[in-house]
């Protein structure tokens, strides 16, 4: 259960990362990547690249006509007997779910793992209104017991060892839990089976919403997703408006990309396709189906041509697995439900710069994420755009960087943008630095640059690079040595 943070201080969060986290995280991410590699190789690189391109174009096309596909989806879900709600923000969505639950006198709810519900803090809202809700994905069940948010969008408890989990089960469930994955699974199975049968509300998200037929696609492995959407008489799905896809051809392509990228599976164990409530008592399934379409900042993301591509994301999590920063700090450092490069670009935009301006800087811009992304999101480009927004501001948000940095950035833009100013500046530096220079080094600089020289001296500025280079060549420097 995560709550929406007021401010994310990435550096401070990094300081709090427990020492064994990077080890657990890297063990998991490297395994994810190995299995992914194996199933991608079977497909052949040529076909894989064609699939990625197709995935990219399908998602881009959908975003470019999002109003059309949303309206179509709504109509089809209604035709199938489902009830559609629209939520502008987290508070809206939580209120809608609480109202439905109250109207049906819900006493206990079971939940499928869903990032949208983590994003809006739904569990917190339900529990505050006296409706107990239980996470049923094993990883989510574990972190709910631990009282923390997910540290990976696919494997939420990836930061914990089996010993941690055994201790948690022993403490919170009052059972004697050995540190053995098989035994721990058995404990969770027995515990949750009764909950599935007793629950009167099942809550899920969705991986895709198919506009053509109004169908919810849910990709899972454990079977808890099927339990939650089959056994309780009431099913509520909370889904971001970015999850819509036009048709079944699109689903075909995306289902080839998602499980392979996410868990290295050719197909996940269970993929459910749900169109409205049940049509007959005999087949079983919920009598009532509600779909809550969630905006919560997504329409704002859509406004900017560059950052819009954030919404292409199909939440596979491969960008986390390949990210050197994520591998060092784990998911909790990102301070919100989404972590890694996905968190750096999505949380920043969903929460706004006042809360999350640190996040686009939590990246080395190495570009591995973009190379692996199954729908080819230009993640580094988006992060750069967001950095620029934080410092300079744009039509979406005002700058939030400290005044000195804003002024510095403006001066920088001016200097680098006009050749003669740049020329002049390089000439002037010689004179400006003269009083501070000691033997070709600048040992002390005035604030704010003193933070650099506190650690190490700064090399004195030379002359013009081209002049320096010519001189070096004439003097028979390294260039000649190498011949």
């Amino acid at each position, binding site marked *: 259960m995560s709550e929406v943070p007021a401010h994310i201080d990435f550096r401070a969060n990094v300081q709090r990362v427990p020492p064994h986290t990077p080890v657990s995280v890297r063990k*998991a991410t490297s*395994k994810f990547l190995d299995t992914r590699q194996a199933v991608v190789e079977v497909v052949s690189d040529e076909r894989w690249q064609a699939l990625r391109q*197709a995935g990219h*174009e*399908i998602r881009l*096309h959908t*975003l470019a*006509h999002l109003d*059309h596909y*949303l309206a179509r989806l709504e109509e089809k879900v209604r035709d199938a007997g489902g009830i559609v709600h*629209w939520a*502008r923000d987290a508070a*809206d969505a939580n209120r809608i779910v609480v109202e439905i639950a109250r109207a049906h006198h819900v006493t206990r709810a079971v939940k499928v793992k869903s990032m949208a519900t983590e994003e809006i803090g739904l569990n917190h809202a339900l529990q505050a209104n006296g409706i107990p809700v239980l996470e049923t994905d*094993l990883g989510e069940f*574990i972190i709910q017991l631990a009282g923390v948010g997910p540290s990976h969008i696919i*494997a939420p408890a990836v930061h914990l*060892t*089996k010993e941690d*989990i055994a201790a948690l089960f022993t403490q919170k469930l009052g059972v004697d839990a050995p540190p053995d*994955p*098989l035994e721990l*699974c058995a404990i969770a*199975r027995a515990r949750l*089976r009764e909950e*599935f*049968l007793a629950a009167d509300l099942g809550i899920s998200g969705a991986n895709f919403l198919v506009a053509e*037929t109004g169908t919810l696609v849910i990709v899972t*492995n*454990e*079977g808890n997703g*099927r*339990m939650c959407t*089959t056994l309780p008489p009431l099913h509520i799905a909370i889904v971001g*408006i970015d999850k819509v896809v036009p*048709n*079944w*051809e*699109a689903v*075909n*392509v995306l*289902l080839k990309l998602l499980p392979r990228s996410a868990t290295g*599976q*050719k*197909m996940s*164990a*269970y*993929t*459910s*396709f*749900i*169109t409205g409530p*049940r*049509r*007959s008592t*005999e*087949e*079983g*399934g919920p009598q009532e189906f509600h779909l809550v379409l969630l*905006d919560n900042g997504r329409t704002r993301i*859509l406004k900017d041509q560059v950052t819009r591509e954030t919404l292409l994301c199909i939440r596979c999590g491969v960008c986390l697995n390949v990210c050197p920063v994520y591998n060092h700090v784990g998911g909790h450092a990102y301070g919100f439900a989404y972590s890694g490069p996905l968190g750096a670009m999505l949380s920043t935009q969903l929460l706004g710069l006042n809360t999350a301006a640190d996040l686009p800087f939590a990246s080395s811009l190495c570009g591995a994420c973009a190379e692996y992304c199954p729908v080819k999101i230009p993640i580094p480009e988006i992060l750069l755009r967001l950095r620029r927004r934080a410092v300079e501001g744009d039509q979406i948000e005002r700058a939030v960087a400290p005044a000195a940095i804003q002024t510095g950035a403006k001066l920088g833009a001016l200097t680098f943008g006009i050749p003669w100013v740049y020329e002049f500046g390089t000439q002037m530096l010689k004179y400006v630095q003269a009083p501070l220079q000691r033997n070709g080094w600048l040992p002390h600089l005035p604030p704010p640059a003193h933070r650099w020289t506190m650690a190490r001296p700064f090399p004195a500025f030379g002359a013009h690079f081209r002049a320096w280079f010519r001189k070096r060549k004439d003097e028979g420097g390294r260039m000649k040595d190498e011949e």
Partner: protein
Amino acid sequence: MNAREQILADVQSALHRKNDSPVAPIPASARVAPRVAGNTDTEMEMLFSEISKLGGITGRIKKSGLKIALEKLVKEQKVKKATLWQTAELAALGIAPALTESGVQIVSPYADKREIAECDLGVTGVDYAFPETGTLMLRSSPVKPRAVSLLPRVHLAIISAAALRADLSSAFAEVRGSNYWIFITGPSRTADIELTVTLGVHGPKALYVWSVG
């Protein structure tokens, strides 16, 4: 303005679109050529090999040997109660009488969910199967209740060669009128604890797939 109108208006303003703005066709490059099927034998072999890799148990069984195979399964998995789809195909194979003869109590698939949950075995057919990924596709209908493949400890799926499809796309075209179907690819699994694959978290712990004929 209500939330719906507001969201749609925000989307349109962000995209510079209006209610009557045209919808461009999906670009041709967004399509990927469907997989081409081999002959039935190799396709079935591929399907079974993929399912086995995932921990499923496959078998080609002659109609005459079905009774013996069921007896063996009942012993192996200590089956006491079983529930079945009510399709003509399963009825024609005589699975329910064979199970009864092996001493298994048959529970109606329309019984309360708690009774279904107590079953050791659920027997279903297979509507479509995709060899490339080892995936079975099961549609729900009044004679094919959803819980049969979900709640019992063991799931037995009976498949015929006619269910094989080369690619998802052809099956999607055939089922789009249905309101519910499920892809099953191996038994229930998780890797949430230290990425150790563990079978049978919430769904069936064992998956048997038999082609009978």
